[in-house]
């Protein structure tokens, strides 16, 4: 019977310990800076190089670019930019390859929606998404 009593003692001792339960969702969960959540996109920084599209393992980024409106400047600017969060696995590869940090991660992870169509985020959604931006984006 000894082992059983020892276990009881351990259990009773736990009562005096500090509570560690997260009070989520009443209180937000503290997350480290590196945490990966819904991306933030800066259209003005994007050079339409397509690297993010090529590296994405689930093919969930779609973008189109157009010619620079200012005829003196070369290159392209972004026209549409969509990420399908039904299949995005938040793997961080798109932000890793982006040469201009036009796409970065944020700490916002709450993606649950009532309708699937809300999971398609377009350029404006991703641009207006300004909270909890990740500070360090390149290793």
């Amino acid at each position, binding site marked *: *019977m*000894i*082992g*059983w009593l*020892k*276990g009881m*003692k*351990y*259990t009773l001792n*736990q009562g005096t310990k500090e509570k*560690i339960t997260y009070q989520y969702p009443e209180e937000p969960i503290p*997350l*480290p*800076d*590196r*945490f*990966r959540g819904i991306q933030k996109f800066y259209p003005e920084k994007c050079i339409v190089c397509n690297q993010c599209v090529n*590296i*994405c*393992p689930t093919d969930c980024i779609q973008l189109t670019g157009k010619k620079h409106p200012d005829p003196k400047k070369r290159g392209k600017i972004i026209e549409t930019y969509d990420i399908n969060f039904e299949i995005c*696995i*938040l*793997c*961080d*590869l798109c932000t*890793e390859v982006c040469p201009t940090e036009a796409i970065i*991660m944020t700490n916002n992870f709450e993606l649950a929606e009532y309708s699937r169509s809300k999971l398609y985020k377009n350029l404006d959604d991703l641009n207006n998404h300004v909270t909890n931006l990740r500070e360090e984006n390149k*290793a």
Partner: protein
Amino acid sequence: MLRTEEMILNVGPQHPSTHGVFRLILKIDGEIIHEATPVIGYLHRGTEKIAEDLQYTQIIPYTDRMDYLSAMTNNYVICHAVETMMGIEIPERAEYLRVIAMELGRVASHLVWWGTYLLDLGSQSPFLYAFRDREMIINLLTELSGARLTFNYMRIGGVKWDAPDGWIKKVQEFVPYMRRQLAGYHELVSGNEIFISRVKGVGKYTKNDAIAYSLSGANLRSTGVSWDVRKNDPYSLYDRFDFDVPVRQEGDALARYECRMAEIDQSLKIIEQACEQIPSKGPVLGKVPRMIRPPKGETFVRIESPRGEIGCYIASDGSKEPYRIKFRRPSFYNLQILPKLLKGENIANVIAILGAVDIVLGEVDG
């Protein structure tokens, strides 16, 4: 005379004690099992087929989703396979970070096993304690990699991030804390008479069976075979650390329990040494060509994951995608012995035997 009839009992696919989607068809006569047929494949996502169209870097996040309780070892095995083929040298600091991350993952994975196994056996509180301490490891790994389970942390030739400031220190502080907790776990469970009578002599098999059925990890070591890839075919930096391979002789569920608990202790020992030896600075990504194209040919490497030997076979045709990639998934191999173990057993022991194998269904089904 009592007349009995054979009847079929379906366990799963959705059953809390199968730890995922796994179905077990039991033919029982009274309380005794005559035949057990495992049905798997509910979680088959075709990782190997998908990977044939992806570049090597893109496959790493997919490996996170196989054995989702210890994604670090999965990340490692594919990086290791490609690095072996290409002969890439990994900077020392990166390799130490990998070892620390993998061993932390091993502790976390064993904690989940410990908690859920006792939950299977009808004891509630260990589950809560295990998850409390696992949460601390998950927080450490989140700080390092940016995700809680699907880390995607390793890269071919190194790791993605260097450790944040003060992270190594936090790990060092965690080790003695975890040791104290582990002692508490032993106090709570290991000596408990009810627990012991529940697992002692249950699901017993011999050394020869274990070898014939290709079992690995604690399932093999609980029968007296001292076989751990970290020791017997050292990869990474494991030859630099002083640690033991816990072995038990009995081959029953209790022996597997003891092996895993002792492994936690050994992992902590490795983490402690790694934190001391790690160079304080240095690059974390080696010299890697921009396009990763392993030479034509094939390779097979294996490493020790918490569940056993995880291996990776790559056949390359010299292009940036693998021609064929195959993972040796330890849970898949370990589960094979189940029909043999369950035959003739009492139905009350099904969960105690299945739980002791320690499977992750994402890995069984690939």
